[in-house]
């Protein structure tokens, strides 16, 4: 009897803990949605209600009619798309080589990839900034795309390598017997099997570009070239933050990332942990 009672109290306590942490996880997110829906005269409200009374989409309207938000959205989409594509192509091929072949500099290569994770952001940003100034690549997407592509790359290569390591080589041998050449066995047999890791690589590359602020703040100075994070930060000026615009912009920026992230979270577990165990 007491065992059963203990069992039930354990389950109830578990649910209470989970719900409590869900509220903590959700609250700031709800806060953004709430701000974006507030009518203009109630932006600085001292009430704690989440759905404001007389909620309105006015801030969203202003965002697209009165600011350059649409331009920033296009800019960010372009940059993030190119970076993701580059990241996936580079990480999937290099990771495969690191997993399957022996070559000169492989050990050092893998080790250096790990060491790059210890670089403080400024250690590459500062010399890159000076280099880009000299190459006249400040205020250009080429500079920023190259920088973003390299940011997530070392981690993604490790991740891909770890995942490829779990795929048996016998599959490629079978493919070779069926008459595929080396490259065909790679993209027809191995790549589809590695899709969980590919998905994670794509997600990380996308996220490293979509909302990056500190690098963009130094490289993109022309407002026409601004990406979403720079635009968003400009609403949050020290004096008189445009809370309505800020909230609406945040919601629009966050939605695609959250949808991507949550729909891929199933692979997040397998892609990340497999990579780290075998890495």
């Amino acid at each position, binding site marked *: 009897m007491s065992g059963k009672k203990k069992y039930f109290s354990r389950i109830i306590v578990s649910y209470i803990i989970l719900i409590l942490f869900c509220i903590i996880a959700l*609250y700031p997110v709800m806060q953004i949605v709430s701000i974006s829906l507030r009518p203009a005269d109630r932006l*600085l409200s001292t009430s704690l209600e989440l759905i404001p009374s007389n909620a309105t989409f006015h801030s969203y309207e202003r965002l697209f009619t009165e600011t350059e938000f649409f331009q920033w959205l296009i800019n960010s989409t372009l940059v993030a798309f190119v970076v993701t594509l580059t990241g996936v192509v580079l990480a999937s091929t290099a990771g495969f080589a690191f997993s399957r072949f022996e070559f000169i500099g492989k050990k050092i290569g893998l080790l250096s990839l790990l060491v790059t994770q210890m670089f403080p952001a400024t250690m590459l*940003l500062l010399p890159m900034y000076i280099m880009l100034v000299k190459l006249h690549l400040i205020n250009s997407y080429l500079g920023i795309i190259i920088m973003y592509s390299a940011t997530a790359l070392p981690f993604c290569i490790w991740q891909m390598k770890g995942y490829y390591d779990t795929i048996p080589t016998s599959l490629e041998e079978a493919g070779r017997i069926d008459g595929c050449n080396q490259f065909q066995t790679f993209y027809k047999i191995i790549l589809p099997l590695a899709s969980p890791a590919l998905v994670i690589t794509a997600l990380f590359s996308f996220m490293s570009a979509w909302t990056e602020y500190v690098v963009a703040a130094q490289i993109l100075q022309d407002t026409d070239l601004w990406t979403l994070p720079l635009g968003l*930060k400009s609403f949050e000026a020290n004096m008189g933050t445009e*809370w309505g615009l800020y909230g609406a912009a945040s919601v629009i920026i966050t939605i695609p990332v959250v949808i991507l992230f949550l729909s891929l979270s199933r692979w997040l577990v397998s892609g990340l942990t497999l990579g780290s165990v075998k890495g």
Partner: protein
Amino acid sequence: MMAKKAKFRQKAYILFLVAPAFIILVGVVIYPFFYNIVLSLSNMSLRHIRDWKIVGFEQYVKVFTENTQPGFYGIFLKTIIWTVVNVFFHVVIGVFLALVLNQKEIRGKAIFRTILILPWAVPQLIVALTWRGMFNYEFGSINLMLTHWFGLPAVQWLKNPLDAFIAVILTNVWLGFPFMMVIALGALQSIPQDLYEAAEIDGAMWYHRLQKITLPLIRPVMIPAITLGTIWTFNNLNIIWLVSNGGEPSDNTHILVSFVYKAAFNFYRYGYGAALSMVIFFVLLVFSLSFMRKTKATEAAY
């Protein structure tokens, strides 16, 4: 002859796979790394942008001895506190939630997991700016909650050095626990269920099972994650910079990396910034090497 040709083709194939990533990493990581070393040995600053010259270890000496406000050692100490507190809470909360969520009786696991991952999914920039708003003295919801619900006095979160430091830590704890939770969940799912059944038959209490089965078995997965988490936290420029708005109040909320960012991009002290970057890098390198060596040594004991 054929064998030679095949070997050559093999080499060409490997080159074809590695070269693109290698070229971009040389351009964006390796070359800047060496350039940074050169900069750290130079006197480059806004005043000496064209006529800079190598001055040896002058900048390194400055890093350790110059009377900056705040000083190097204070910021270094703060960085360590920041890292230890954050990683501690990330791991404890993450593993704890994973354990709770992994119980077989819990229904709606997918929903709970999805909601609990949210802080990781929201872009850091937005997390930082939103929490900054929540810490606002008059209108921020944290103070509103403190005063309305608990009858406590409102806190000047972003105005006092200590409160501002607590505010950035709270923000970063919030956004960091899901990563550890996801890793721990993955590790927990790989533990064979019959180990627990055997332990139950032996009459082991839950804390015995936790201590003898669960924790040792998720350890090998958690160690790399903790190492990576420590490095990421030590170098987390975004949250510090954006929540404290560049180190406010009056540069009291800095960790090393945000201090470099300020020195380099607000005060244009390029040589000094490069030298301090190198110092941070070496600190992390030494930490990671010794941490990994230590944990490997204990791993062999299992």
